[in-house]
């Protein structure tokens, strides 16, 4: 089996085509969220430095020179090893990235290899030039997959890793115990034939998010949608009698999504 290949891509996304021929998108992290993650890591590192200094001060009571040597080595190990260690053991995440829902991945959508983690972090030496990751930031803005130099060298990308939760569309239909449009199966079939997936999705999303809308906006939205669907297929008057625009849209979604 061959690894993924790239498909047609929208901005801010890395499309992966699996060997099974299925395409999925990875949402790329932008420079701002990456910068925030870095600031969080910096804060975390400064706390670790502080703790390290305290520990070496205690050691200094026994041997001054040894404690200073340990302090220098610890500072260096933390600076270089913090991101390398965490990205390897936390599967592409540092503390800052984890808090902001970011993850480093192989550019082909695969898991990271150790050499990739090391290279992308060692190349921070160049990306951070001349100050505050200016070089890395510019590369992030101009490269196709928002990669800094370290990412280019290591073949990595930073993606938004928030896991989507399982969709619950039942509540839209559970409230729809009786659907007067079902009494006209030939019209229902015509409606299913004429409504595009995008139109059906617009109806479903409106119903799923109805509680988030202001009452006036809700009336306008369902009025517009209802008029649109009524133009597609004209159901007889008795089927529409006494039902609101919102109920009509609910009935339409019910017809489309539940055969």
């Amino acid at each position: 089996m061959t690894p993924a290949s790239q498909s047609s891509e929208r901005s801010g996304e890395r499309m992966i085509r699996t060997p099974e021929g299925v395409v999925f998108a990875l949402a790329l992290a932008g420079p701002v969220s990456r910068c925030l993650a870095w600031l969080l890591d910096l804060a975390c590192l400064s706390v670790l430095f502080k703790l390290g200094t305290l520990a070496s001060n205690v050691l200094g009571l026994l041997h001054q020179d040894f404690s200073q040597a340990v302090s220098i080595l610890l500072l260096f190990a933390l600076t270089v090893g913090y991101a390398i260690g965490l990205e390897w053991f936390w599967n592409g995440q540092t503390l800052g990235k984890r808090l902001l829902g970011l993850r480093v991945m192989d550019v082909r959508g695969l898991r990271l290899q150790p050499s990739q983690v090391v290279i992308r972090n060692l190349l921070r030496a160049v990306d951070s030039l001349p100050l505050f990751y200016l070089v890395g930031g510019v590369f992030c803005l101009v490269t196709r997959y928002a990669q800094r130099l370290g990412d280019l060298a290591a073949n990595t990308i930073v993606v938004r890793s928030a896991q989507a939760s399982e969709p619950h569309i039942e509540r839209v239909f559970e409230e729809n115990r009786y659907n007067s449009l079902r009494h006209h199966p030939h019209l229902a079939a015509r409606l299913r034939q004429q409504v595009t997936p995008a139109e059906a999705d617009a109806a479903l999303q409106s119903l799923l998010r109805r509680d988030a809308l202001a009452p006036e906006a809700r009336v306008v939205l369902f009025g517009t949608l209802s008029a649109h669907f009524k133009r597609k297929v004209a159901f007889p008057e008795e089927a529409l009698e006494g039902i609101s625009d919102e109920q009509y849209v609910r009935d339409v979604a019910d017809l489309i999504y539940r055969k």
Partner: protein
Amino acid sequence: MIIDLQKFITAERPYWQELDALLIRQERDPYRRVGFDDIRRLHYLYQRASSDLAKINTFSAERAMHRYLESLVGRAYAFIYGARQKAVRFRPLAFLLRTFPATFRRHFRPFALSLTIMALGALFGGGAILFDPEAKAVLMPFEHLQMDPAERVAREEGAGGQDHLQGAQGRFSAFLMTHNTRVSIFVLALGMTWGIGTVLLLFSNGVMLGAVAADYLLAGQHAFLFGWLLPHGATEIPSILIAGQAGLLLAGALLGAASERPMRERLRAVGPDVVTLISGVAVMLVWAGLVEAFFSQYHAPVIPYSVKIAFGAVELCLLALFLGYAGRSSSDRRQPERNRHRGSYRS
């Protein structure tokens, strides 16, 4: 045609939840051994979720469902296709005694180039001091190098048994290790500037080295120069050269001369070797730091120059033998097979 979404979800949800649970278990403990039956089940569930995603892509535009399945398929895909060919257990001794020298030899050309660049820099620095002694202030911007060599030697030797690093060797040694490792990482990282930065840093290090050497040789302080520089320089200078080798390797992959493979593939091929080289450099610099702090800074009469020079010369010979021959037979036997697997980018 639009699929019956509720029926679809009701039928497929148990499979998605099972796949999600398997993936969560694996993500929580990436080193967990997965049994054959689990892998088969995971693969089946992945294929099923992929097929569901394809259906959703074709027959429905429901976004939440689409996002959910994309996330599920993406995670399963990374796990299934990102699995390592064999379990990687890091063996430090084997890495140091076999992998590192074998990698060094495999990419000897960038090392030779690195050496040539530094040697040219040294010639330039030496020539500059020879023809224009005033250039010393520009080429050696360090206070202890600014003074007259004879004066410095007299001062160091006159100190007799006095130890100016008394009680600070550990700190000095740690500083040297970290500083030199930082410089080496920088030399490597600058490989991503198409090698220009790496070349400039190697050349400037060569200029400084050549200028110091010329200054002390012209002042007739041969013994002091070699006694001072050889013990730690025998490891430290090759370390910088190997860091340059790693940087040039990266630059070679970036430029891709004489290679028809895409840049991404070239960089992927050299990645593990670049990491091996810089890791070896870090280990070498720990040794160099210890030697410089605890040995190099002590001159005659505390430690006779002959002892220091002999120590440095032996170190250099051992390093050359190590890099030239260590792990040779086993690495050479594995080489062709390894390259076939990785499609390695040869420099």
